[in-house]
């Protein structure tokens, strides 16, 4: 064995492990414990077993939030991936082939740079930006135009059945660029000869997309779905800042993260909030396991 290995190993691991155990592992472990108590921060916590979880089952807000996660979980990945795939295909193989080399459409570089930019901005900042865009009177970006041409303003964030979709639109607005770049990287690794061979067999652009690009990109798509799914289970910053009353109107946009925050730091119901946290954890875990299970299939070697 090399001389003085253990002091070195311990010296290098001590600080990161300590920090990680104190601020990450210990809180996670305690969350399960606190969720079994009626702790409200003042007196000592009392053990109440699964009472918090039973109350969770009767809590309309909780189910509302879970339902919104369901909508987000389907809509966010589907819309984002569809748009991003279309754009990535255009930018990489949409143009004509020059000298056997597949080309993207004109201005591909510019579009990639512009589309990706929202990813660099903080979600909280974007939420404030879209508060302005969605304003319900003539000072809003969209309603300013609608009212100029004599239409009624659209109450994006105020109408309950429109509010969640207005928020999803913002999430898509931010995410598309990231996935365009991600899919572009995946498409770049597909050899050009495959496209050439398919074209020689008379495949159209649309067929190229569905029969060549899509199957060969399967792994990347799976990663994208998991990423967007995880984003769908968070959504705290966007809902907390953009929606009316943080999750309103009347809970029409609420998500679990917002309810956890509200129960813990507004109502001081620490036990109940932790039970919601545990529920969120198991939902996330179920989603990840299901996705990996359902999307598993023979990967194509090339």
């Amino acid at each position, binding site marked *: 064995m090399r001389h003085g290995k253990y002091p070195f190993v311990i010296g290098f691991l001590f600080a990161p492990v300590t920090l990680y155990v104190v601020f990450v592992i210990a809180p996670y472990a305690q969350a399960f414990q606190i969720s079994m108590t009626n702790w409200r921060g003042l007196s000592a916590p009392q053990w109440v077993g699964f009472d918090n979880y039973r109350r969770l089952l009767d809590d309309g807000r909780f189910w509302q939030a879970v339902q919104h996660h369901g909508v987000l979980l389907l809509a966010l990945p589907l819309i984002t991936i569809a748009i991003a795939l279309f754009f990535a295909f255009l930018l990489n193989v949409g143009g004509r082939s020059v000298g056997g080399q597949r080309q993207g*459409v004109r201005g591909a570089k510019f579009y990639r740079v512009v589309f990706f930019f929202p990813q*660099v901005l903080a979600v909280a900042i974007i939420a404030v930006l879209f508060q302005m865009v969605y304003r319900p009177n*003539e000072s*809003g970006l969209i309603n*300013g135009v609608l009212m100029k041409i004599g239409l009624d303003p659209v109450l994006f964030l105020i109408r309950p059945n429109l509010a969640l979709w207005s928020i999803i639109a913002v999430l898509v607005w931010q995410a598309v*660029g990231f996935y365009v*770049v991600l899919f572009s990287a995946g498409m770049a690794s597909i050899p050009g000869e495959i496209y050439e061979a398919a074209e020689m067999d*008379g495949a159209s652009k649309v067929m190229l997309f569905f029969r060549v690009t899509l199957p060969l990109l399967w792994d990347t798509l799976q990663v994208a779905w998991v990423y967007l799914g995880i984003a769908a289970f968070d959504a705290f910053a966007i809902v907390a800042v953009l929606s009316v009353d943080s999750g309103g109107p009347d809970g029409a946009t609420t998500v679990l993260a917002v309810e956890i*925050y509200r129960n813990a730091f507004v109502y001081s119901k620490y036990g109940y909030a932790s039970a919601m946290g545990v529920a969120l954890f198991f939902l996330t875990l179920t989603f990840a396991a299901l996705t990996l299970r359902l999307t598993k299939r023979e990967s194509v070697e090339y």
Partner: protein
Amino acid sequence: MAAQTTLPPASADTPPDRPAIPARRARGEHHEVRLFSGLGQLALAVWAVIVIVPILWTFLAAFKNTGEIFSSPWTLPAELRWENFGRAWTKAHVGRYFLNSVFVVSCSTFGTMLLGSMAAYVLARYKFRGNRAIYYLFVSGLAFPVFLALVPLFFVVRNLGLLDTHTGVILVYIAYSLPFTIFFLAAFFRTLPNSVAEAGMIDGCSHTRLFFQVMLPMAKPGLISVAIFNIIGQWAQYQLPLVLLSNAKDKWVLTQGIADISVNAGYEADWSGLFAALTIAILPMILVYAIFQRQIQSGLTSGAVK
């Protein structure tokens, strides 16, 4: 295009040595390419407008006064009212929030990179009992939502006397950035050649010197990717500072500051001040992005690309 799409899927597999079909296809192909890239170009241009216009519109509104914002939201400002920015910077404290963010993220990213690379290096290249256990302890952190830990974390930080301090936020940022940093860098350190490390050891290099003077410089591309990933992630943090700094307004970071200004703008009817504050928050990101665009794109997507 329609004729092409309705072709039975089996035709992709038919050998191309049937003369009639390819001939017809060649003409259709040409037409289809033009239509496809025409529609495609249009879609791309529309999306570019959708991305750019809200941001540009914010910049313009930052120079208007409240009357103009309401009466003519789509026109250029009548005059450049720089005082909106002065008001946002000092009276709304955007300046302080901005500098707080710079301070917190500088410290936390430096700490994350230092501690993360140290742990990743040891875990990737040294054999000892418990190595795998510690590695999986870190990596399992990737699977947990932060919201599960939020309540206990608040009390851990409070009991350490770090609530409403930058130290507390920085330590928490580092701790929550370690799983991805270690996961990514450990994979990177494993790919570095053994020969260089062995040569260093023969020359009498200590383990510590070997790490800082040989291995770390070799890992530079990986370090840059992860550093960008962490800077952007920590800069965008909203929920953690909201919980950990709630009672110390002078210590707030930019995200929570801007969100707070947007609430107050409604009461004070200072919309131009809010637009100016937003501009101050967005403009530096455009500059940074313009300079490091390539590195940022590869840094952020590095986690997902195999």
